[in-house]
Every structure is written in C-alpha cells, then in structure tokens.
C-alpha cells in the first residue's frame, strides 16, 4: 500500500467535533432501542394529523437530494466526457453512496414495519409514487455500490473484477442518471396528490421537475463542501480549477430553478401569501433568500467564485436553502392543512443528527482505508 501517510495521520484527531459525533451516536443507540421496543409514538411527535415529520423531510428527502452530486458528476465525466473532472468523481460517488445508505437506515427508523421493506419487490402497485421511490432507492443504491466498487477492488488488487466493472461503466452511468432523474423527481411527485393540503407557495404540478433541478444545484453544492472539508480534514488542496466551473453549473441550476419558482408563484397567485408574508411567507422568503438569491448573487461575482472561502460559503448556503426547502414542503407547507404545528422531538433530532455523524465518520474511514482521492496528496509541510 502506497497510500499517502499524510491522509492517515490527518484523520485520527480527536477534537471537539469527533467528541460531539461520538456523544450523538451514543444517544442515537439509546433512541434506537426505544424506537423498536415502544413504537413510533414513544419517540416521535408524529400523529395521525401529522404522519410524516423530520425523518421523511430530512433523512429521506434531503439525504437523497444531497446525494445528487454523484449522478451529476458521473454524467459530466462519463457521458459528456469532460475527463478533467475525474479527480472529484470518487469522493462524490462516495458521498452519494453514503447518502443512499443513510437514507435506507433512516427509512428503517421511519417505516412502521421496516422488516417488511422487501414487500415493495413482491406486491406491486405501479400507481403509487412510493412504489417508484422504493424501486429507485434499491436500484440506484446498487448502481452506486457498483460505481464505487472499483475503489474497493483497487485497494484489494482484484484486477480482473475491476476490469469487468470497467467494461460496464457506460451503461452503469447512464442507468444511474436515469434512475436519479426518476428518483429525485419522484420525491416531488409524492406531494402532487395533496393539492388541497400543501401550501400554494410550494405546491405546483411542476414539483417533480423542481425537485430534480434543485437537487442538481444542491448536489454540486455538496461536492464543493465535501472538497472543502476534505481539505480541512485530510490536508487536501482545494481543486479550484475544477470547482470554479462546477460553481458556474450550480449557478445555472439554481438560476433556472429560482426563475421557474418565481414564475410559478406569480402565475398561480400564490404570491399573495407574501403580501404581507405570514408564517409560510417568511419561511419561503428565508428558504429562497438563503438557498437561491444569495448563493446565485455571490457566485455570479468572479472574485467570490474563484476564492475558496467565497465558494464554500455560497455552496453551504445553497445546501442549507435546499434543506429548508425540503423541510418547508414536508413540514411548514403541510401544517395549516393538518391544523397542528409539528416540531420534532429531541429523539427524532438525535436520530437525524446521528445519521449525519455516521455519514462523516464513514466518509473519514473510507478515505483512510480506500484510495478515494486518486492522486497522492501534496504534503503541505504539516
């Protein structure tokens, strides 16, 4: 193994964040026991009036959306043949795979009877968006695992298997892009059936398309963030020559998304909810300002886009705005119709934070033991 020692050394610090994650994971274990012995009512603030909460809104909707960098990057490199982006494909695919695995863990908490998850394979209902979602989760997780497999096979020098996976790269990537398109949009389609419940600031027949485009923007945002965090944690240099053009892609995705939303809201008359803004109105303005207006504004300035800090801040805002959007669709926008306010219990929050902590931990482990970053890292004299 000639893997750079700098990365191994860099990953074994025990600082504040590591301790924080460890504490979260201990609480996470406790809540897990309660969840499966006492039922959903004992640990969540869910009710018959509010059956979908944080675990759907954050763990599933955001987990899937933030994994969108994987299909975007593989498409850029393998379908558009822009080979220079190759160095950031591996960490992005890893992020995607971890995202999907954590979505599945999240589903195991949220589903009433998760041990029956295989029922979706046997009992079909093609009229159900949830049926489409279930198949997309399963198939795309498999695709991501295969897309990630060369990294593992390389580590264990299984050359023949690796070549075999290499020969199916193109159909795999195309299949992955198709599945992702379906899956990202289907999460929006879930809400098409509640036109009388979801607030008009978020409900539109174009929800599937909006979910797809916003996920592309947020997925690129995650790729940039993940590069920044890798720089901090593993002493990597930020690939500004690759991230800057990606940021331009993000501006296009967020711009298209933002304009579409403005047009939809004005045309549907939902804009009335902003004059003056009430609870939903303010939540929308916050989401749209943080997630679209500010990052697009920042990234349009070349000096900000080419500056590592400026780029990272803009990406972070886009990701935060994306999370707000998904929570607004799944929680804020549904509250008025439900007639109740929903605030997640601390145990729900613990599970969601635990999944994030698991994600960071698994990413760090993967970087330590697998050739996730292809070229040796430049030692910065640390």
């Amino acid at each position, binding site marked *: 193994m000639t893997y750079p020692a700098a990365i191994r050394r860099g990953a074994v610090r025990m600082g504040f964040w590591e301790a924080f994650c460890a504490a979260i994971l201990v609480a996470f274990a406790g809540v897990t026991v309660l969840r*499966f*012995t*006492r*039922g*959903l*009512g*004992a640990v969540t603030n*869910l*009710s*018959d*009036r509010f*059956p*979908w909460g944080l675990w759907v809104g954050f763990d599933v909707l955001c987990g899937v959306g933030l994994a969108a960098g994987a299909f975007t990057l593989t*498409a850029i490199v*393998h*379908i*558009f*043949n822009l*080979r220079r982006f190759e160095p950031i494909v591996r960490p992005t695919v890893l992020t995607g795979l971890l995202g999907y695995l954590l979505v599945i863990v999240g589903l195991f908490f*949220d*589903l*009433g*009877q*998760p041990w*029956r*998850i295989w*029922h*979706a394979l*046997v*009992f*079909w*209902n*093609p*009229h*159900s*968006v*949830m*049926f*489409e*979602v*279930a198949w997309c989760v399963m198939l795309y997780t498999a695709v991501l695992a295969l897309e990630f497999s060369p990294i593992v096979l390389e580590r264990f020098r299984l050359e023949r298997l690796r070549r075999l996976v290499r020969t199916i790269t*193109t159909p795999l990537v*195309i299949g992955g*892009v*198709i599945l992702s*398109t*379906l899956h990202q*949009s289907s999460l929006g*389609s*879930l809400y*098409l*059936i*509640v*036109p*009388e*419940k979801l607030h008009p600031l978020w409900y539109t*027949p174009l929800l*599937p398309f909006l979910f797809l485009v916003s996920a592309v923007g947020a997925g690129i945002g995650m790729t940039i963030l993940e590069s920044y965090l890798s720089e901090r944690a593993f002493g990597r240099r930020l690939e500004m020559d690759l991230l800057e053009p990606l940021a331009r892609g993000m501006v296009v995705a967020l711009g298209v998304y933002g304009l579409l939303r403005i047009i939809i809201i004005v045309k549907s008359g939902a804009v009335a909810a902003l004059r003056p803004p009430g609870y939903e109105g303010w939540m929308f303005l916050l989401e749209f300002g943080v997630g679209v207006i500010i990052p697009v504004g920042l990234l349009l300035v070349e000096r900000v886009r080419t500056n590592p800090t400026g780029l990272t801040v803009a990406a972070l805002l886009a990701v935060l705005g994306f999370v707000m959007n998904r929570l607004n669709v799944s929680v804020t926008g549904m509250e008025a119709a439900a007639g109740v306010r929903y605030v997640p219990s601390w145990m729900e929050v613990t599970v969601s934070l635990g999944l994030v902590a698991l994600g960071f931990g698994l990413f760090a482990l993967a970087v330590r033991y697998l050739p996730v970053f292809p070229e040796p890292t430049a030692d910065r004299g640390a």
Partner: protein
Amino acid sequence: MSVGLLYDSTRCVGCGACSAACKEVNDLPPPIEESTTAYTWTVVQNVGGANVRRLCFHCLDPTCVSVCPVGALQKTAEGPVVYDASRCIGCRYCIMACPFGVPKYQWDQPVPVVGKCILCAGRVARGLPTACASVCPTGATLFGEREALVGEARLRIARAPDAYVDHVYGLTEAGGTSVLMLSGVPFESLGLRTNVPKQPLPLLTWRILSEIPSFVSVWGAFLFGIHWITKRRDDVRAFEAAQREQRR
C-alpha cells in the same frame, strides 16, 4: 353494483350505537374514543349542536389505494375500501394523502398497522348491511346501493329544502364516494373538509407515473447519444494526435 351508506345528520340523535356495533363486529378494543383512531373506526361527534358521524368515505377512486406502494389498500367491487394489514410496511402515505383524513395509525405499537372503517366488507360480501346501519335506531345511517342512496338524498332535500343544505356531500368530493352525507348546517361547520377537489386525486400522480416508460426510453437514448458523440470526438482527436506524432 356498488353499495354505500347515506348518513343524514338531521336524523342522528347521537346515541353512539353505530360506534358500539362497529367495535363489536370488527373486534376492536374499548373504549370508544372522542374522535376516530386506529382502534375506533367511527364516532358520532356533536359540533355546535349538530351531530356528525366520522367514518371512511370509501371513495370511488380512492387516494389511499393509489398511493399504497404495496397494494395493502384495495377498493372492492361491492364498494368497501379494505386494508390488508399483512402487506402494510408502515410508510403512512395513505394517512398523509387521504383528502378526508381517515386512515389512522397505531402509534403506540412496536408492530403497528393502519386502522380505518372497512364498510364491514365481510358482512357486505355476504349480502348483509354494515353493522352501524343495522343498529341505527333512527335510520340516520342508511345502507343500500349507492345509486339508490343518491336518489334518496336528493328526494329528502327536495321534500324539505329548508331543513337541508342543498348539497349531497360525497356526490362529487374526490370524484365521488360510497358514503354520502346530508346536513342541516353547512358542512364545514360540521368539521368536514370542503376544499376537497372534485376530481379523483390519483389522476394527479398517474399523469406522471404513466409516462415513465416513455421517459426512460427517450432519456436513455438521449444520454447514450451524447456519450456516443462526445466519445467519438475524443477518439478522433486522439487518432489525429497519434497520426501527427507518426508523421514527425
């Protein structure tokens, strides 16, 4: 040939016999709660002096049936929307999507299932009326063929236009339901949802889902085409570079 119920709020005395009979016939544990839950499938509520029964409306094109990923909910030919607990994975999409807020969940159970009125599907299949209708002392809950019940409802409104709101709830709500209601006071003051679309809701998602096969083939061909073109361009460039190298 499908059956249903006609519930006439003006004839209901709120005795609760329907709830008790429902508990007994469907083997549900006591007590009869204030509002419907996974264990209490029907209740009579008194809202501002008027009685209103709460139960599943048994839509003609049910939202719950369409959203269930594993087909645990089905609309039978006789009319009832039934639930197969052995299939349910607990995603609760039915609870989230139902325009009437009917399906309820066993939040207190480690192995939970959904609970909702099944219009006594077993009895109905044997040609019997629902338990609630068979015990109703005033005929406020009437069992019969839906067509006949619609006629009866219209007749009652026509005979006593002052006693009724001029609307049969369930005639067009969500595209029509097997359970119909009449009221002497506006339906929203009974706590019934009046913003339910007049079209069957499953169309909203089926419009998208039915296009998936075409979408996959066109999108797949497009992506492969892009790959084909960009790869060819790279190959040509590499070939030309190699030739230039040779000539040197």
